[in-house]
């Protein structure tokens, strides 16, 4: 049949836009994924041998490399000599759960065994509270994908989407679209504006279970949002119950949740999942300190101190580990909150999240650590 033949010929003649470049980009990612896999048939003995060699290499690297020197400094400064090795490749996380990591290529999910998956070319990713979905920005779209990268829904916003934040209840996602603050239900329905003319600062949901913040309305379980508004040209912090629209009093702890509150600081505080502990990064001269404060009292305690900047912190889902980034050393450090002498360090973090080398070595940002309920 002529129609069949013509259609076959036409379809085969089609070329997708920028096909060759797309092939190059994809090959870089696939090659990196292949390089990280463990070939079948590797015996346990071989694993042990590889591990022994890797540890040996890491020990030598620690002694010789600048990054290693920093780890050695850290060990001396904080926990005594000879305790830590920076592992050259991201391996099993010290606690259960999965990390969401933002890189120049897009968000990655890091599983508990250290394996990684690039979700796609999205920006500003946020976990749903149970780790079932990730919401992210894609130009003028807000996208929800599952942890395998399958798109579950998308909505088109009036302007470029930024800073989506999934509420702790799971039922709402707040995001900025241009100068507007908007909210949409977790299933992608009911998208609506919340405020117009807001500042370019990520909104922050009030955590569930924080007794410092428990008060009705806006009590634990409700959807209470803090954001930086602009009233007559001046920045103002507002807190509202997004379901009722009721304006609530902004509390100091609400301010702490904002990444860049008008009062300065921000994004350097993380409340543990059980709300019993607060981790804070504090600048002290040219060093950053990681402080831990328990709700039960006892004051702040220095867990860790390092030359340069630290990023994060991020709590593990079981509340026992803290993940901080150390861009100057290109490392991630997992620090046991109750036993700070236990530090698990991973090296070459930028490279591991930029397999194509297109991101200019930018240090990735940890956007969350959840225990998926799958």
């Amino acid at each position: 049949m002529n129609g069949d033949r013509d259609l076959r010929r036409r379809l085969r003649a089609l070329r997708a836009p920028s096909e060759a470049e797309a092939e190059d980009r994809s090959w870089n990612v696939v090659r990196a994924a292949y390089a990280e896999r463990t070939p079948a048939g590797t015996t346990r003995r071989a694993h042990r041998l590889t591990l022994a060699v890797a540890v040996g290499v890491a020990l030598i690297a620690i002694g010789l490399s600048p990054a290693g020197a920093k780890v050695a400094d850290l060990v001396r400064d904080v926990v005594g000599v000879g305790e830590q090795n920076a592992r050259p490749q991201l391996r099993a996380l010290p606690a259960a759960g999965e990390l969401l990591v933002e890189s120049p290529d897009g968000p990655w999910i890091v599983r508990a065994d250290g394996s990684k998956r690039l979700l796609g070319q999205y920006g500003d990713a946020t976990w749903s509270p149970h780790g079932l979905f990730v919401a992210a920005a894609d130009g003028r779209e807000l996208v929800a994908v599952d942890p395998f990268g399958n798109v579950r829904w998308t909505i088109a916003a009036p302007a470029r989407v930024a800073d989506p934040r999934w509420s702790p209840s799971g039922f709402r996602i707040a995001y900025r679209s241009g100068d507007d603050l908007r909210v949409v239900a977790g299933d992608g329905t009911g998208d609506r504006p919340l405020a117009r003319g807001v500042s370019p600062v990520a909104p922050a949901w009030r955590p569930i279970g924080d007794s410092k913040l428990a008060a009705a309305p806006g009590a634990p379980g409700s959807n209470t949002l803090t954001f930086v508004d602009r009233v007559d040209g001046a920045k103002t912090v507002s807190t509202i119950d997004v379901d009722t629209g009721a304006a609530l009093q902004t509390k100091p702890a609400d301010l702490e949740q904002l990444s860049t509150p008008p009062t300065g600081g921000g994004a350097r505080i993380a409340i543990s999942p059980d709300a019993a502990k607060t981790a804070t990064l504090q600048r002290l001269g040219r060093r950053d300190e990681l402080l831990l404060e328990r709700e039960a009292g006892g004051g702040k305690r220095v867990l860790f101190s390092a030359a340069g900047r630290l990023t994060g912190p991020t709590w593990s889902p079981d509340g026992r580990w803290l993940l901080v980034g150390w861009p100057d050393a290109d490392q991630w450090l997992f620090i046991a909150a109750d036993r700070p002498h236990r530090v698990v360090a991973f090296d070459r973090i930028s490279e591991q999240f930029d397999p194509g080398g297109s991101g200019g070595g930018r240090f990735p940002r940890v956007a969350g650590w959840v225990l998926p309920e799958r």
Partner: protein
Amino acid sequence: MPPNAAPARQLLSPMSAQSANSLRISLARARGRARRDGTLVRDAQRGSADALEELFHRHWRRAHRAAFLVVGDASAAEDIAQESFLAAIRALDRFDRRRPFAPWLHRITVNRAIDYARARALRAERAIAPGDETRVVEREAAAPGSDSISEELIAALTELSPDHRAVIVLRYLLDYTPGEIGETLGLPRGTVNSRLRRGLDQLRPAVSEEAR
């Protein structure tokens, strides 16, 4: 300076991504004719990055084009094809080499593309500014620089549902039989045939317009 220095510099001059890629693909194809997919999969399972590269370049373009024709969006098609290969890497050790590689890859690719296109369609129904985003897809499909793109045919394909597009792509781009398509998409053969007929009917004006 040696007399042949200048030609050597010319040879070493930067190559465009497209020409470098074409060269690599041609080389891979020339080598690959003698090596079957099963052999490449076996070698890749044993840790040969060269074998994987050959397998990738042998199959990527068709997977990418299939995804592109189903979703009508080049970026999404790139993600889908890439994710399909990543899925292949993850399952590489479990892959049964007696089975053909391409249908397995195409099954993943096309089903992912359908999921993506359906999600987009749902999004368009809820769009805040109706029409805006569907036009993005059309504009992208007809973007300048995609010189071989047949705008009429792409536009006609866009009018079909993702499920119909997938059946057309599997039959006329990837050359599967209706029975194989049914297996790939989990559809009865009769449904595949009716979708093919309906798809062909809708595409016929665009195809005959171009054939003229």
